[in-house]
């Protein structure tokens, strides 16, 4: 069971959180102007990253807030968590291997 650093509450155990999919995908607007292919890409196409993956989490059983995280998909470990308003941090060097 991982410990996850909520940017608002601090370190909390994994069951308090819910995964929210890949981060930094803004809903395109106005949606009416998108082609079918563009809309399909937005709906269904996601990265399948090996390594540092930017993703959304929500501290559902805590403060209830969404935040973003950088997680290494090969180890499951979180490299960083950050608020929605913040840009993704660079992955720490030691995780780049």
């Amino acid at each position, binding site marked *: *069971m991982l410990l996850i650093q909520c940017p608002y509450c601090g370190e909390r155990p994994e069951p308090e959180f819910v995964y929210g999919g890949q981060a930094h995908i803004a809903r395109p607007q106005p949606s*009416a102007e998108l082609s079918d292919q563009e*809309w399909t890409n937005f*709906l269904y196409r996601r990265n399948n990253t090996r390594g540092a993956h930017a993703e*959304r989490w929500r501290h559902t059983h805590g403060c209830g807030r*969404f935040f973003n995280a950088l997680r290494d998909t090969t*180890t499951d470990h979180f490299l960083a968590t950050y608020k*929605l308003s913040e840009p993704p941090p660079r992955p720490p060097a030691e995780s780049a291997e």
Partner: protein
Amino acid sequence: MTQGFRTVSGGRIDRARVLRFSFDGHAYAGVAGDTLASALLANGVHLLGRSFKYHRPRGLLAAGSEEPSALVAVRRDAARYTPNLRATQVELYEGLEAHSQNRWPSLALDFGAVNDLLSPFIPAGFYYKTFMWPRRAWRWLYEPRIRAAAGLGRAPTQPDPDRYASRYAHCDVLVVGAGPAGLAAAAAAVGAGARVILCDEQNELGGSLLSDSSRAAPVIDGRPAARWLDDTLADLAARQVTLLPRTTAFGYFPHNLVALNERLTDHLAIPAALAPRERQWQVRAREVVLATGAIERPLVFPGNDRPGIMLAAAARTWLNRYGVLPGTRAVVVTASDAAYEAALDLQQAGLAIAMIAEVRDAVPAGLADLTRAAGIPVLTGATVLGTSGRRRVQAIRLARIRHGAVSEPKTLRCDLVLMSGGFTPSVHLFSQSRGTLAWDDAVQAFLPAVLAERARSAGACRGVFELARVRSDGAAAGAAAAREATAPGREGVCPAGALGRSVAAAAAGSAEELAGARGFAGALPQPQRARGKAFVDWQNDVTTRDLALATREGFRSIEHIKRYTTTGMATDQGKTSNLNALGVVSGTLGKAIPDMGLTTFRMPYTPVTFGSFAGSARGDLFDPVRTTPMHSWAVKNGAVFEDVGLWKRARHFPCPGEDLHRAVNRECLTVRNACGIFDASTLGKIEVVGKDAVTFMNRLYTNAWSSLAVGRCRYGVLLRDDGFVYDDGVVARMAEDRFHVTTTTGGAPRVLALMEDYLQTEWPDLGVWLTSTTEQWAVIAVQGPTARPVLESLVDIDMSAAAMPHMSVAVGHICGVPMRLFRVSFSGELGFEVNVPADFGAAVWEAISEAGQAHGITPYGTETMHVLRAEKGYIIVGQDTDGTVTPEDAGLGWAIGKNKPDFLGKRSLQRPAMTSADRRQLVGLLTVDPATVLDEGAQVMLEPAAPVPTRPIGHVTSSYYSATLGRSIALALIGGGRSRSGQTLYVPMPQGDVPVQVASPVFYDPKGERLNA
């Protein structure tokens, strides 16, 4: 029977406290401090079980949790029956009743032993090939037979009556293993100011110190080891170290979460009433010290599994800790120095040591002197050709062997064979933590190399064997762990950075130490055409021949060989077998051990009871139960409940003598003709408030909310962005900036989560606040033609049709209680939903119920609610929709705000596939025979008796008998359904294809006149 093999003195037992027990119905006596294994040995009983596959007689290989095959069942009563316990871990108590397993009719005479003779026909992987044909026979013939013949114990037949506890704990340093390394680590850590938990799987803390002999007792800090141990434990306790004996660390989870299982009462003759039997700890440690020791390796030679053949360290433990002589005349076979200590201990206790067969070419000088002085003959460069003895070893055949040539063969009589192939560091937990192991040439073992967690290994589990070095290694680990755990500025429990760190090297051991412990891995050399089974894995009955077969059949990866032969699997997890299996395969493939890698160690380290995992989460406490404020009224009035998610909902209120069908018919007719009262409190409710509330609702729901006046309601449809129906419910506008949103009962949490998601991540600029009010409001639906007079006398507002038309909301009081009154209907009748603060729900319900008596009111449940709504063609999201249904499919196209620039799912609805005419659409189905009620979920076919394979054109989503209409009705999703009105289709049912006619989904009052009354 007397304890004929008990020494007169010594050991950590209390000879004065005699304990009676039974094994397979025979009465024996042991003493306090015994395990079942030591007590049986004291009585000269060596045959404890039959092996898994071949039913070979088995005794005790080991003295601890690594014992692979002496598995027994302990019975307290019919419900308290625990199978597959290691006899070495069962602490003796007065009256203990134990049974052997895997034998019939008895341990001594076991018919299953015929498997041993049949063994040429059941080689490794036999389950995969021998019985493949005929395939069907696998299920009813082969598998049950094999399972019955080859297996472990049976499960208890009654529910477990015991209690189990669970506990969360946090500490600076968790030390696993209370041998010399762990004790030193705990002492150093607490000395540095850390909060420390120290756990050990044994009943006493002390590890290897518990098995030291008086002959050569080590001296620690100027005291005999036993005294030092007592002093150290007292000191640790005084310094508030949490000491947990009988506590196995069985699982290592990310971020230093270590699961411990503490056995609290299994060692007691009469456990206190209600005392928990076990406690499962989830310990979150800032730093972990693994001091898990090492396990002696057996040697692999033909006939190495007979009772009386055991590890040398086990024999030392029997003698020195339990005061038991494991035999009278022993032969020692060894590739390491430790066995010499055992031989000398046993000889001093009176055993005859017939010979030490030294696998190595020479005996270390110091030991040679000792054996010479003791008069023990030594054969160097030795191997074992075989053993004999049916239920106990009687003789061993030794020889020297060079390049397959046998010389100096000799057969020695003995009733005990000690063996030692050196020590394998216990890296199970380290490996579970995802740490990487690396082969160490000096130690000749896999040792911790790269960390995945904030952990340290200390002592024998990382190849440090000599006592003084073990203690300093432990102390260094404990001090370092404490330093890091309590370092100023340390962020949280698990800051990043442990991952990928290399393990700090241990101080190098002396050449003698390493040479003494290194030992031998693999099978002892044998002449060509050697006979007899040489076991590698005792628990799974895997022999050298099985491993050779696997490689002959082309298996190369050790992970594949493990699965094909089952070596290292099951509850044993290769504790005694792993390295030998590698050694054997390495020899066959001509590939070095380090190049083959190691199989993954699975948790649990030793088996954990289901009860320990369940804890208190069983029976009524298995899941939370949600009840409405009116629940007790429903109970009192005979409601039959159903589970809807976690909610208990009244399904129907049968009168005496009524079954479900009759009750529902009566309830339905009463609502249609008079009035019904229904508990709708489980509906999800969300208050959407703020200056941008209407904008938010417009973006979320399909409907046009700007045009909804304050005081009015609208049926809202919520899609996901993929265009499919996600939820629905009535939404009321309480004020310009305030909406009272209702959701389906099951959908409330996910709708709120979806709202929060969009509000927080897409539109954080909107001034909107979301509050779940599901449990704040009790909701009482009053439905039926007499609903208005029932309520009118209780409320302080005008309920006339003019003041409160269909789909309106008003704020007022009922029985003096604040109320939001909705005029809405899920039944098709004139209807109201009374929302009052939850605490007043029961009282208001009773008042309405009372007032309704004059108007023919009846309580009704969810089943009637379902029938009534289906008669009106109202969908239930999740029943009539399945995540692939668009609003248009469900007949809800009218609920889409056509002029809105955007809402969730709008763009998706324009994709070609979403507008195709042959999509499945919601229609009504009327069976040609009005008495036939279709099965929900049944497929709908174009033709009767269509030859298979065929494609259904739809399926039935809802189906009921309608008392109001005097016939059955059904809703269905049918391809191009609305264009098929009047068409006859066929629904395959158990009794045959049922013809049905496609109809409108609105079966009752299609014009809605009753609704608007």
